[in-house]
């Protein structure tokens, strides 16, 4: 995007925590929100003589991300140490892949607000360890929580293909969705499961060289990223217009003022003394392994939307809503597989189920609803066993974990379509209401309404209205 006479260049490095069972290099569990240092062992604490063992599942999750972003999976990876001292980094090095990233040369096709599609190239992706967390207490002490230490991350490094804060926002949103559909992470921003390092520079139009870039690290909100970039774009343009020079520096985004604040000027590159991790053997990734992971990779949101429209006859907009999360889309697929009518299943999920989730502020996987129960209810409706009105009660029940068919039976929520039973009721009602028959013959439509009301009362609401209506008209004609 242009700001005056300048064009903007943005590159993003996105870190996503991968939700493996155990950590990248130790058997400690990966779990958010537990008591400090509960999910740790001597390896996480960097005790003397302990050794890392690489988690194969984390490598496979990384491969999933690489495949989803069309990257080439490296046939040979080795681990490297990135050395620095900090209390949240107990070994004083982070295990990463600086020389042999797991994935290279990928891309993400980003749909922009005007509907055009922009391809953002992904330079490389690598698996590495997350750090622990330092907090600084009001008591003057600093506290270290190593629960997060060693959680596997996938770092996704884009090429500087992003030209505006809006594009950056769209890229992040769609990258998040792509990651969600690999099943490797829920990418919850508020839990820091997805964080972005942002690089931005501007240059006069037509200039062949990039401007000096400014870096902002660890922003865990897409809005903050956008705001920070909007501010930076303006700030840098003002500096250049007033004849100033952009310094290579690290800045911090400050939400209350929606501005960025200088943290430090970079004079040289940090020297992390990278070198091959001698405690771990290199890993060879053959085609069979890649294929196995590809086979396990869930279908992307885009592919699912296409299939919903073409195979199931779902409206494009509905297909988009159904694929906003992997959980919803998987739930929908399972419901259809369980025998539910595709359109009815879509309507329920987009309508009543979503409303339920919003009302109770919970995720789909935290409700008691199962695809089999939802499909069971829809089948009861389709078969005419229950009315759509009765279905409202059944819906409440299945949201509380009940099995739909037995619930309907137990509560007499059964529609009666048997002609023999219906005929008995119709005959009785007609015999008792000769005046209504007269009215009907005299052309008063209202009369049928009255008769149906009587029939419903008699059947305690269980008569199938469609069937009963047709039979009533037939019987009236006979009188």
């Amino acid at each position, binding site marked *: 995007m242009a700001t005056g006479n300048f064009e903007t260049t943005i590159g993003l490095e996105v870190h996503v925590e991968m939700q493996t069972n155990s950590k990248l290099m130790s058997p400690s569990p990966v779990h958010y929100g537990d008591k400090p240092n509960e999910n740790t062992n001597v390896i996480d604490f960097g005790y*003397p*003589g*302990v*050794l890392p*063992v690489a988690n194969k599942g984390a490598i496979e999750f990384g491969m999933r991300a690489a495949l989803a972003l069309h990257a080439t999976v490296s046939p040979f990876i080795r681990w490297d140490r990135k050395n620095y*001292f900090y209390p949240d980094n107990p070994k004083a090095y982070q295990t990463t892949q600086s020389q042999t990233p797991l994935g290279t040369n990928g891309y993400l096709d980003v749909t922009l607000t005007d509907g055009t599609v922009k391809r953002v190239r992904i330079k490389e992706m690598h698996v590495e360890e997350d750090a622990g967390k330092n907090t600084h207490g009001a008591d003057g002490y600093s506290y*270290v929580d190593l629960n997060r230490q060693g959680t596997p991350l996938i770092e996704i490094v884009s090429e500087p293909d992003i030209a505006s804060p809006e594009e950056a926002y769209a890229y992040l949103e769609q990258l998040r969705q792509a990651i969600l559909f690999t099943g490797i992470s829920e990418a919850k921003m508020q839990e820091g499961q997805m964080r972005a390092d942002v690089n931005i520079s501007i240059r006069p139009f037509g200039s062949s060289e990039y401007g000096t870039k400014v870096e902002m690290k660890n922003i865990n909100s897409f809005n903050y990223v956008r705001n920070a970039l909007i501010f930076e774009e303006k700030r840098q343009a003002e500096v250049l217009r007033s004849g100033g020079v952009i310094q290579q520096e690290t800045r911090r985004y400050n939400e209350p003022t929606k501005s960025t604040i200088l943290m430090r000027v970079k004079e040289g590159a940090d020297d992390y003394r990278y*070198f091959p991790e*001698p405690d771990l053997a290199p890993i060879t990734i053959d085609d069979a392994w890649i294929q196995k992971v590809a086979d396990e990779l869930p279908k992307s949101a885009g592919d699912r939307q296409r299939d919903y429209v073409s195979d199931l006859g779902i409206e494009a907009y509905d297909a988009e809503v159904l694929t906003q999360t992997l959980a919803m889309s998987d739930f929908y697929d399972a419901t259809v597989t369980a025998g539910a009518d595709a359109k009815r299943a879509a309507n329920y999920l987009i309508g009543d189920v979503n409303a339920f989730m919003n009302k109770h502020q919970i995720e789909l996987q935290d409700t008691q609803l199962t695809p089999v129960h939802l499909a069971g209810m829809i089948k009861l409706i389709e078969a005419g066993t229950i009315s759509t009105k009765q279905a409202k009660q059944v819906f409440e029940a299945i949201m509380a974990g009940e099995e739909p068919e037995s619930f309907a039976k137990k509560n007499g929520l059964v529609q009666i379509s048997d002609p023999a039973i219906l005929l008995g009721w119709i005959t009785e009602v007609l015999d008792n209401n000769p005046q209504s028959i007269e009215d009907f013959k005299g052309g008063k439509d209202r009369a049928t309404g009255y008769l149906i009301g009587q029939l419903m009362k008699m059947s305690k609401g269980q008569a199938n209205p469609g069937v009963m209506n047709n039979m009533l008209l037939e019987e009236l004609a006979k009188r």
Partner: protein
Amino acid sequence: MTINFFDNDLTSLHEKLVNKDITTVDLTQATIENIEKTDNELQAFLRTNSDEALLQAKKIDEQQNFSNILSGLPLALKDNLATNGIQTTGASHILEGFKPVYDATVVDKLSTVGAISVGKTNMDEFAMGGSTETSYYKKTANAWDHTKVPGGSSGGSAAAVAGGQVPFALGSDTGGSIRQPAAFNGIVGLKPTYGRVSRWGLFAMASSLDQVGPFTRTVKDNALVLNTIAGFDAKDSTSSNRDVPDFTSKLTGDVKGLKIAVPKEYFGEGIDPKVATTVKAAIAQLEAMGATVDEVSLPHTKYGVAAYYIIMSSEASSNLQRYDGVRYGFRADNVKNLEDLYIKTRSEGFGDEVKRRIMLGTFSLSAGAYDAFFKKAAKIRTLLIEDFNKVFANYDVIVGPTAPTVAYGLGEEIDDPTAMYLADVLTIPVNLAGLPGLSVNAGFVDGLPVGLQIIGKPFDEATVYQTGYAFEQASRLFEQRPNIAKKY
């Protein structure tokens, strides 16, 4: 009861336990007494753990399970092997008081079969040194001449075995730290093939070079200990999942037809002529027994020390960063902020040699130096491996001296790091190439033992032992005893 380990090898001790001639408690008690009698002069131990050892011995006696040859036998551990609940310091001030909550895998394997550790032995601080003089705590004497160094870095373990305090001990070898002290003390020491023995619980100096191995008085004893400590460990992904053979299988005394290569570089400049003569005589003995002996060349040997000191110090500089005073061990007082805590703790907690290597390694890995130092050293390492591969295409073992000299005087070289580093020239290439290397006594020069080094193909410890055993049985040098033996 007194038990003299000069008269009893592991097999003999095992039989005594099985036949109930002695109990495990007797044996443990006798070992503790042996140490009490002699450690004033040897100073091999940093700490003994008599109470725990006797408790364990009692259990073994109750169970009467002597299914492994090491069941009930006492041993000593180098102080860089983690022992659960027992102080382990790496002979460094920075780990003073540190009690691990886990056992090293080798410790676990030994205690599982009922072997009993009686204490932790002195060593160079974090295994950095060749004389055990860089220990923060004490200096250890050579078993043959107490004015001489015991070698290092596993000097305490070597002196304890050579001095008759324990029948066997474990050490670690990164550039010669088992073989050189074994040579200086006239005993048997093996650095196994890299990956043969788990490194879990070994306080890392240089991860790509470190190996744990046994010290014993005889080759057969050595093979018996390796039988128990070798094997794949799921906690060490650099450990090998190859089958562990019986390492005693080739101990026949026969070397007929064995093809021995003798590198001319191992008898070059800096090798004491008397040491060279002694080793050549030993090789001649093997030839007389039917082995074929040819001179070969390992042309890149001369670059080994330089490459080693870059790779070792680079890895060590990273491995030792964890000692920061935050979570365990020593922490400096009166610190102003985090950086001050790091600087003061590490300045006060580490000795000169450790600091020297951290600085050398930090420099070698730094952005401006990486290509010219670390990367180049890695290339030399590849060339050294190729040198060995070429020779092993035609030979079964490579034989030469273990160290260029016999043990030197305490205090003589400690202030000359370059001389100390050069003394590793014959052992270092074996670590860089990941090969098994054994030192056995080749004879004496001026009353001090000389080491014969036998280097094998990867994972072919059995042939290395075969060679050492044949020489040992023919020379009977293990029957010679230092004066300290008279104390028992």
